[in-house]
């Protein structure tokens, strides 16, 4: 049986009006006789306030809300830099879901926070087989890989998990995740589904390796101290011919255009890592783990390779759906891709719409990082934290 989906979009500058419009549209697409089980909410940063969430929660009749803030929202109607999108989901009796939330991650250690969220999500799923997890986390958590590690510890290392890190309007100041009537930073929320459902996930980045292969000779967690025995910052900045001051001022921009590619043992694809800051002007602090001893390369992306990767991710998602129709689709697209594609950003959406059919509800965000399994050589897939990717997740009943 199909999952009933109702989508609504609010674009008005007056936030309460936009929220009301979105709720009205979404509800209009779900017949009154269906019970709404879950609401996914994505919005641009202006909507990320407790007032908006409280209004939403009340208007939706206290349906569970899960969502995140973003630089822009992706919907069938287009990409919007101001707006709020709601997806109301009504599941058939043979599909179950559980939602939960964890706050104050930095006070707990990321791994502990991940474990806590995993435990909470599993709590109501004790005797039911779980099939898929979706997680949204604050995009500015320092140790997202650690958080993911904790989550995998509880949900299982090969449990299919997808998700995205919330983003803001490219200021890297504050990002939010939404859970019921709360809009919180330094937090994460998630959903796990179980029962008779199908899903297909495709993830690709399209960035290409450049320059000589190098080795991380000294690293801890997210921080690379030495590359080929040299100061990591000096190796990185040499590529751009910048002094340390210019590197610092343009770091965020540079690192999304030219991330570091990390080769992982047993994986077909390399992981991309954005450099988020410099430590003592010597070490590179990345958004995810970089194991000591791993081979790394500087990566470069082009519009063409980026769009080709979107097509590949879509094909992969469709292949994994095993020919079944998706009832709705989530798109988690890195803001790096939005920056790189510029005016052609809409082409990614065109590719997805063309591949899935224009009537399939699509909703997505631009993220500061994505969580998804990589296609492994020896087993089904281990979930990693990624940068610069587009992940397309189609779900059907």
């Amino acid at each position, binding site marked *: 049986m199909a999952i009933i989906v109702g989508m609504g979009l609010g674009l008005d500058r007056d936030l309460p009006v936009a929220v009301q419009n979105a709720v009205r549209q979404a509800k209009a697409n779900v017949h009154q006789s269906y019970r709404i089980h879950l609401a996914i909410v994505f919005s641009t940063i202006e909507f990320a306030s407790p007032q908006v969430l409280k209004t939403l929660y009340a208007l939706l009749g206290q349906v569970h809300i899960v969502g995140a803030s973003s630089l822009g929202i992706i919907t069938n109607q287009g990409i919007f830099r101001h707006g709020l999108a709601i997806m109301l989901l009504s599941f058939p009796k043979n599909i179950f879901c559980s939602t939960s939330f964890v706050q104050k991650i930095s006070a707990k250690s990321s791994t502990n926070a991940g474990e806590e969220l995993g435990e909470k999500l599993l709590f109501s799923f004790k005797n039911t087989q779980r099939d898929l997890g979706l997680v949204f986390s604050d995009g500015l958590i320092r140790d997202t890989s650690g958080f993911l590690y904790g989550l995998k510890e509880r949900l299982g290392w090969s449990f299919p998990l997808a998700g995205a890190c919330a983003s803001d309007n490219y*200021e890297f100041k504050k990002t939010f995740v939404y859970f019921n009537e709360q809009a919180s930073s330094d937090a994460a929320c998630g959903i796990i589904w179980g029962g008779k459902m199908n899903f297909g996930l495709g993830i690709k980045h399209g960035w290409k390796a*450049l320059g*000589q292969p190098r080795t991380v000779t000294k690293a801890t967690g997210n921080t690379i101290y030495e590359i080929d025995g040299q100061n990591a910052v000096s190796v990185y900045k040499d590529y751009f*011919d910048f002094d340390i001051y210019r590197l610092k001022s343009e770091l965020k921009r540079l690192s999304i*255009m*030219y991330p570091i590619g990390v080769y992982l043992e047993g994986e077909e694809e390399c992981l991309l890592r954005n450099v988020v800051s410099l430590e003592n002007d010597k070490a590179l602090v990345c958004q995810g783990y970089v194991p000591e001893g791993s081979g790394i390369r500087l990566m470069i992306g082009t519009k063409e390779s980026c769009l080709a990767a979107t097509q590949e991710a879509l094909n992969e998602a469709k292949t994994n759906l095993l020919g079944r129709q998706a009832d709705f689709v989530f798109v988690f697209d890195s803001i790096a891709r939005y920056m790189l594609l510029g*005016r052609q950003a809409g082409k990614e959406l065109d590719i997805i719409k063309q591949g899935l059919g224009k009537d399939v509800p699509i909703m997505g965000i631009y993220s500061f990082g994505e969580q998804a399994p990589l296609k492994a050589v020896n087993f089904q897939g281990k979930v990693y934290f990624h940068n610069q990717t587009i992940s397309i997740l189609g779900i059907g009943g």
Partner: protein
Amino acid sequence: MAFTEFLINTLVFCGIILSIVLAILLLYKTEKIKLLEQSIAKLKISLNEMDEQAKLIVRTDMELNKAQEELDKKIVGLYALQRLSRSISTTLEENLIFKMIDFSVIEELGFEKACCFLFDEGLNQFVLQLNIGYSRGEIEGIMKMVASDINRYLELIKEESTTSSISLTTDPEFREKMGKVFRVASFIASPLLPKEGSKGFFLAGTMSRETLISEGDEELITILANQLGQALENARLFEKTWRAHQELEKKVEERTRELSKALEEVKMISRRKTDFVSSVAHELRTPLTSIKGYAAIVLSEKLGTLPPPLKERLEKINRHSDELAQLVNDLLDISRIESGRVSMEQQPQDLKSIVEEVVDLLSIIIKEKQIEFSYSVPQEAQSVYVDRGQIKRVLINLINNAIKFTPSNGKITVSCSSGDHEVRVDVQDSGYGIPESSIDKIFEEFYRVDNPINQEAKGTGLGLPLVKNIIEAHKGKIWVKSKLGNGSTFSFTLPKPIQ
């Protein structure tokens, strides 16, 4: 012993052989290591070269990306400007111009905040015209700070050039201050310089330290400010023209009111005159009838034979009484028609028969003066919708006049022609004609053209006004064309029966 010696010798030999083999192997391996080292060195060089190339590629790519971003931004900005330009160029109300600028335009230009101030000389302060992206509290704070530094902002306008957080300026302190005042990390401010009325400035800014403002952005904001200035100028010119137009309309209205009032007064006077003429004529007719009656009785000599001089005088009294009666009757007719007391009894009539009746009536005089008279009423002009008696009167009057002012052996023609809804009748003579100065007055009551005929012949000056009144009562028109010495043509129109 010998065996032992043999064994030692054999071992020594083998050792020597092994040493030689090992030496050979060592030599071979050393050579291989050398070759490998050479390959590694080559590979290292290649990798280093590859890395150097990579650096070049990255740097070129950065430049290309920057150029592409700049281009994208410019294209998006130009689209936004074009859209805005289309809407503001068609706006002729100053208040509406700034309402055309919404958040999406500012966002497409690459900014999140924008505001615009115009300097009001009367109030001696900057007045806020546009606020995008600022809260009420923020904008009130900005207004206060702008008000406290009016002269510096006026200078900014006087400089007539765009200033920004990246442009070179003689006053970097003020530039920094502007960033703080308008709560932005980067900004572009451009003056609004309409030729008419108050001037001001437009400011667009971004709080993001990541957004880099370029010269291209400065150009776009300058274009936008120029367009706003132009739109303000157009709106003000339009308002000025509109006001002038309104004043003119007001004056025309006032004048029309005055004229209407005057016309009403004229009409009232005319009505009074008509009433006066009517009552005087009535009052005159009764004694006139008595005079005429008594004169007729005396002239009939029933009361006794009259001596010839007395008879001659009485005949004169009788004739003058007739003329006076005619004059009174004409006056009464005119006043009746003018006051609407007499309505035209219009019916479908045959114009040809009316003309023929009139010609028959006047044929004796025509013959007496040996005038060549002709008339033509074509088939299509025969049917008219008129009061037969009144139109006969018109024709008698006009043909009589023509006879009167046409010398012997002259020519008179009556011709009729048909129009869409009316029939036109022309009475043309080869008489003395009318001086140009008299043409406009000829239909006025009691006006008589100053010519030898009129000096000799008697007339009341009421014939043509009566004719005019009758024609106009039929909703027709009457006019005359004449040249002194070349005769006159009196034309009038009559309605056709409704089909």
